[in-house]
């Protein structure tokens, strides 16, 4: 993995992008919105969504976590109340590049303006915690360094 020095990074969620719907480009460019669903989501959601195949589904995001989509990474500013359940149950998450520090809607994950890339099939999608000491409280970063799961295998 890519933990650098003592700056241990917890992977909250890891996935691979397997499909990009026809409306995704416009959602990103015109609205600053990027919608994910896992591959079990019904076909009618394909047009508006990035479809993906998760390999690690530990936690939903909290403010300060970092999102990686392909070569792009950006911080999470705010998280709505139903985000974790959406992500863990449905592989569903709505990123909004609005720079807000409180989520207007229960499904919103707010990120900096213009932060969102155009995802491509094969890109990795990850949510990580704790790589930057300023990014998350120490309690969330599991400084004990005793990973019980086998994520590296």
């Amino acid at each position, binding site marked *: 993995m890519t933990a650098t020095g003592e700056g241990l990074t917890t992977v909250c969620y890891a996935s691979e992008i397997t499909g990009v719907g026809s409306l995704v480009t416009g*959602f990103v460019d015109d609205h600053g919105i990027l919608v994910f669903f896992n591959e*079990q989501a*019904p076909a*009618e959601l394909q047009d*508006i*969504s990035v479809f993906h195949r998760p390999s690690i589904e530990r936690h939903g995001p909290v403010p300060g976590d970092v999102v990686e989509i392909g070569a792009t990474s950006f911080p999470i500013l705010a998280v*709505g109340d139903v985000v974790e359940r959406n992500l863990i*149950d449905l592989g569903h998450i709505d990123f909004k590049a609005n720079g807000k520090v409180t989520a207007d*809607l229960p*499904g919103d994950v707010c990120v900096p303006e213009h932060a969102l890339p155009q995802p491509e099939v094969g890109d990795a999608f990850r949510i990580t915690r704790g790589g930057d000491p300023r990014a998350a409280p120490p309690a969330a970063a599991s400084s004990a360094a005793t990973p019980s799961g086998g994520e590296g295998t």
Partner: protein
Amino acid sequence: MTDYKSVKITKGRGGWGGPLTVTPTEKKPYIYSVTGGGIHPVAARIAELTGGTPFDGFKSSVPFDQIAVAVIDCGGTARVGVYPMKKVLTVDVHATSPAGPLANFITEQLFVSGVSPNEIEAQ
């Protein structure tokens, strides 16, 4: 032959849109639950009162023209607009208002939100 009945669905606290009258037919039998964790209680209640067929959208899909009503638990951006865009009657269990890229498809004739089983009334 199934004898279908109608229900009236009104918005719940903080909700928007509706009321909607839902009546399944032979050609549109499905109460389509696009929610986490199986058939949502709202979808189950609609199916119980109408005689429609509950269907879990995360297990497999049905064509839009066979859906009597879609029940979603959308936080406000994506699913909230997809079904109205296809002219499918849509019930959101969360109290959302029209928003997002598809907001212009969300009308009071097609959409009602903030709905719990208490807002579903047999006709």
